[in-house]
């Protein structure tokens, strides 16, 4: 089981600090969401975990072994990068064949089945794939790799809603059949929310939150009802995201759900609802 230990990682690009003293542990066999605004340092962190770049300071260990230029560790990770690193002159089926050489557990039959399901022509050359199909192709290679750790950087880039839905379903089916560590970096938080077990939030190169999704969602709630009554409830409370609809309004209260005042809400005829991860993310990163 491959635990990822990130200790005091800093990455500088000239005068820019892309990551600043980040430490965290990624437990095996969980699905993580790596969230952050543009330029927060998400891709830098993923590139460091996968030996694509080198840290300025700090260390990363997987299953107790340093990741730096360590093939023993690297062969257990599959990293679907946003950019294309595959030879454009090769056909999809040729890439499947060659990936099998480097990932011994790569399942060509499964890759072909997924290609069929997603409508990816395996006889096409990489250069002729559209942005969406290039993402589908890379996502299929990752799913079929059977690596212990799967890392996805913007996996659904350019995919239509139908294909995005298919991808999330397939990811969960794949995970259920063979649990593994999955890290997904994405901006589409609403879509991925139900897939994730834990979230890691990075802001300006610093780790600001790492929690199970449930715990994070329990740290806030939505209150709604008649505007004046909602305002009365919100007195002395921290809240974000006020939304008005005629004389009604709703607001997201930053307070653990166990402290919500149900008696007052009942008296004021207000309703509670679960907070959305995206709203919390916006609040945390703004």
């Amino acid at each position: 089981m491959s635990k990822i230990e990130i200790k005091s990682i800093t990455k500088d690009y000239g005068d820019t600090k892309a990551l600043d003293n980040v430490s965290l542990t990624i437990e095996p066999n969980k699905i993580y969401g790596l969230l952050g605004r543009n330029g927060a340092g998400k891709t830098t962190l993923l590139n460091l975990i996968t030996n694509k770049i080198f840290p300025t300071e700090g260390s990363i260990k997987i299953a107790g072994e340093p990741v730096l230029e360590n093939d023993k560790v690297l062969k257990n990770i599959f990293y679907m990068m946003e950019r294309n690193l595959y030879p454009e002159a090769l056909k999809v089926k040729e890439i499947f064949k060659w990936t099998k050489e480097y990932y011994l557990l790569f399942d060509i039959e499964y890759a072909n089945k997924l290609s069929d399901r997603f409508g990816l022509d395996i006889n096409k050359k990489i250069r002729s794939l559209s942005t969406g199909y290039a993402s589908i192709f890379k996502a299929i290679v990752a799913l079929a790799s059977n690596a212990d750790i799967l890392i996805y950087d913007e996996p659904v880039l350019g995919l239509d809603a139908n294909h995005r839905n298919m991808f999330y379903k397939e990811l969960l089916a794949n995970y259920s059949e063979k649990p593994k560590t999955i890290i997904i970096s994405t901006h589409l938080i609403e879509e991925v929310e139900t897939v994730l077990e834990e979230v890691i939030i990075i802001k300006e190169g610093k780790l600001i939150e790492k929690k199970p999704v449930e715990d994070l969602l329990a740290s806030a709630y939505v209150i709604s009802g008649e505007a004046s009554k909602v305002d009365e409830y919100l007195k002395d409370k921290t809240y974000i995201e006020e939304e008005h609809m005629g004389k009604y309004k709703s607001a997201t209260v930053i307070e653990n759900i166990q402290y919500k005042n149900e008696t007052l809400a009942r008296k004021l005829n207000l309703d509670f609802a679960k907070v959305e991860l995206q709203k919390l993310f916006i609040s945390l990163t703004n």
Partner: protein
Amino acid sequence: MEHTFKVSKYIFQDFKKALIIYYGIIIGIFMLMLFSYMRFSSGQSGDDIRFGGFGVSTVIFMFVSGLNCFKVNFKFMQANNISRKRFYRGTIIALISVAALMAFVDVVLNNVFNQIIPYEGVFEQLYRNGNYFADFVWSFALMVLAVSTGMFITLLYYKCNKLMKVMISFIPVVLFILLALFNNLTKGAVAYGVVNFFTAVLGFENYNPYIAVFSFFIASAGVLALSYGLIRRMPIKD
């Protein structure tokens, strides 16, 4: 090690098509030579028609292959999470294997051509030596140097930013101008020294090809060591 050979296997596979095309062209040129010979030669032993030296084009082919063997393969190996050191080792094994294969094919073709038309290979022309083994070892060492140099130049350009690329491109020009200048100042002593140096390291003094083989291997080792220094922390670039 198994994984390293898999890197070599991919790179070798990448070479296959180019090798087939290259030798197809060489055989085509030979057919032209044969046609010219049959058309223009009187068949007398005193004829002046002589052919030779396709080995030079093989060395150029290896140099160009070295120039082209890095970027696409490096990115593909990075997509498969292969470490840089394993990629380096795999690449070297593939390039050395290709050099050995081409040196062997060249020696065989030289001798086949030699049986049909008045043909002399580069090695025979330079060393007045018809020994097959010496020809093979010399060609192999020269090709290893050519392909290593090509790869080193590519690595250097890939790693550098725009300003450094321009500077690197100007260095040989500046060196050449300086050498010419010093040559004038020393009344030809620099040129004389350069010629003497190459005569010695290429074994021309006593027609000993093994001195050249030794020189080529030493130079290749130096170039490959520098290449490793460049590849150790190579970033992925577009």
